[in-house]
């Protein structure tokens, strides 16, 4: 029954001023007269008894337009009038709307809207600025502390210094980025905006997908800024101490890029928790708990199972993503994942959480 132009009654009556919102033709009075009482409730909802104040001339207008535009419906169905009413109701033949051409919402439009949403609230800027300051700042602080105490460091420690030292702040920056991920969706619930968003775009999976995409792309860009800034600000200090961490080295470049991907994955994890819990404080608590508290607990788990559980924890998997062969820890596969498995484990975790979030978003009442 649907069509590209299921316009309602808006084909009638004077429209708002403005060039693109032109008046549509008014039906003439005699055309409607015949149709008022055909109302099967289909179009006018008119019970055929007409309240005195009804604007009779307009109320059955959809019938008229339907009839004019779609003679076949009238001709082929025996009780012609109701058939015409239904055709009108289905909106198959509505004249072009006053609002310009109506086209089905594209994913591109959903992305545009979500991009506009994310850049028109201050919380985005604040969280991103804090994420950059925390990530880059803490990396610099750690580097400064390391360089300042250089002479007291053991030789093995000096040998283990790798690109992950320059990216150390990212381990804390992920938390802020995770909060941004939560806020992007949970703020819609706390404000009630989600209901407005869903009336504008009622197809839920595309809506949530557009939101997640915009978040991921934004976090990837900011993540690359963070990781490259961290690298370029910190590597020279180590270089000055004779520890060269060249970006030309594939493993180093991969670690810098992986750190940005880590930030994106945590943003999406926060997003999933936000969508599942629909509550800002709750989702932030869970995100922080999973990223920071859970690993502390799992670190104490005994045995090989305990070690396995600990190494697949999101924050540990994320740290593994940024590690290189030089890291002392990375050589012990019983306690640490390889960079690739770290990425796969974290990506799968986030994928599962997102799948749950999408399923719930599709199913639940908004």
């Amino acid at each position, binding site marked *: 029954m649907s069509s590209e132009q299921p316009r*309602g009654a808006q084909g009638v009556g004077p429209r708002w001023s403005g060039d693109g919102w032109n008046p549509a033709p008014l039906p003439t009075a005699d055309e409607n007269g015949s149709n008022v009482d055909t109302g099967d409730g289909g179009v006018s909802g008119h*019970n055929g008894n007409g309240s005195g*104040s009804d604007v009779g001339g307009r109320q059955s*207008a959809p019938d008229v337009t339907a009839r004019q535009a779609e003679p076949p419906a009238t001709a082929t169905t025996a009780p012609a009038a109701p058939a015409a009413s239904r055709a009108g109701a289905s909106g198959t033949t509505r004249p072009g709307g006053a*609002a310009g051409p109506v086209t089905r919402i594209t994913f591109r439009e959903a992305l545009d809207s979500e991009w506009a*949403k994310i850049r028109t609230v201050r919380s985005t800027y604040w969280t991103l600025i804090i994420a950059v300051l925390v990530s880059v700042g803490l990396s610099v602080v750690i580097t400064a502390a390391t360089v300042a105490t250089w002479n007291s460091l053991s030789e093995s420690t000096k040998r283990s210094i790798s690109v992950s030292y320059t990216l150390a702040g990212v381990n804390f920056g992920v938390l802020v980025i995770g909060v941004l991920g939560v806020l992007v969706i949970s703020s819609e619930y706390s404000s009630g905006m989600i*209901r407005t968003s869903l009336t504008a775009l009622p197809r839920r999976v595309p809506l949530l997908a557009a939101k997640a995409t915009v978040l991921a792309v934004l976090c990837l860009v900011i993540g690359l800024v963070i990781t490259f800034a961290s690298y370029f600000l910190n590597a020279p200090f180590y270089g000055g101490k004779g520890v060269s961490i060249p970006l030309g080295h594939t493993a180093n470049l991969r670690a810098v890029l992986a750190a940005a991907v880590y930030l994106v994955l945590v943003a999406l994890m926060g997003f999933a928790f936000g969508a599942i819990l629909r509550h800002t404080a709750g989702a932030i608590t869970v995100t922080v708990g999973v990223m920071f508290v859970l690993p502390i607990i799992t670190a104490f788990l005994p045995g090989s199972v305990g070690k396995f559980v600990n190494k697949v924890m999101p924050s540990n998997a994320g740290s593994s993503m940024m590690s290189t062969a030089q890291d002392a820890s990375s050589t012990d596969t019983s306690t640490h994942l390889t960079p690739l498995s770290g990425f796969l484990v974290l990506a799968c975790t986030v994928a599962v959480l997102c799948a749950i979030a999408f399923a719930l978003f599709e199913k639940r009442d908004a």
Partner: protein
Amino acid sequence: MIDAKGLTKRYGSQLAVDHAYFTVGAGRVTGFLGPNGAGKSTTMRMILGLDRPTAGSVTINGVRYSQLASPLREVGALLDAKAVHGGRSAYNHLSVLAKTNGIPKRRIAEVIGMVGLDSVAGRRSGGFSLGMGQRLGIAAALLGDPGVLMFDEPVNGLDPEGILWIRNLMKSLAAQGRAVFVSSHLMSEMALTADHLVVIGRGKILADEPTARFIERNSTSHVRVRSPQMGELAPRLAAEGWEVRQQPDYSVHVVGADPARIGDVAGQNGLWLHELTLVQSSLEEAFMRLTADSVEYHSTNAQGAAADPLGLPGVPQNVPAWGRPGSEDPE
């Protein structure tokens, strides 16, 4: 137009909306009237596809909301004026909505002008007063120049000027040929704006008819009679074929008679009258009676009591249905 067919929503054991059939036609204001918790908001959310019906369906111009090609061009809805991100400016809020439905920028400025928010369009909506928030919500509803408009309790909390503005706006939108669906728990408000009424009580549609007919059908008048000789008078009045209802304050309500005839009967029998008053029940009472009946099915006293605007003591049935325990809003 909106067409609900057997629309049902169940929350656990509670039936919030119970097989609702109604239509909202173009070119008029349809009032959606019901006490708090009757299922109005739930119904409106189902129309917009926000809540999924347990059973039945509701379509807009023959199409489910979620299947509309460009929903804002078809339906403009104001469910909750506060359903905006307070950190976003009014202009940006509208811009975000416009982008999804391919609505040109020019239109944003237009609707802002229409609702009179020009001077605050750049301000964050979190600082808006209720009236300004309501205007922003209406601007969003008008954004797509839709043929169907829905307002959930639009005048709640507004000052008289705001109420008048919304009332006139709804009428003018309907006069332009649009279908306007507006919910309220105030019959008096609906009597002023709505051409057609859909009355809901406890999730059931109690009436779907023109306002004028609803009033005619539901409002009744009675004559309040007091007499020191009621014991003799009452049977004589009943003998005339009128319904005589004993009231707890020792008056009687006579239904179906005019005061003059009652006076004649009293005079012919030499009986004293202390009061003879024609009580015309208002629209509000008609509404209360209707919704009270939907709850107090078997209470014979409820009808008479509900019709008395004074709220006589000792008549518990006089408490409106939605004031009783167990009728909280499920939403």
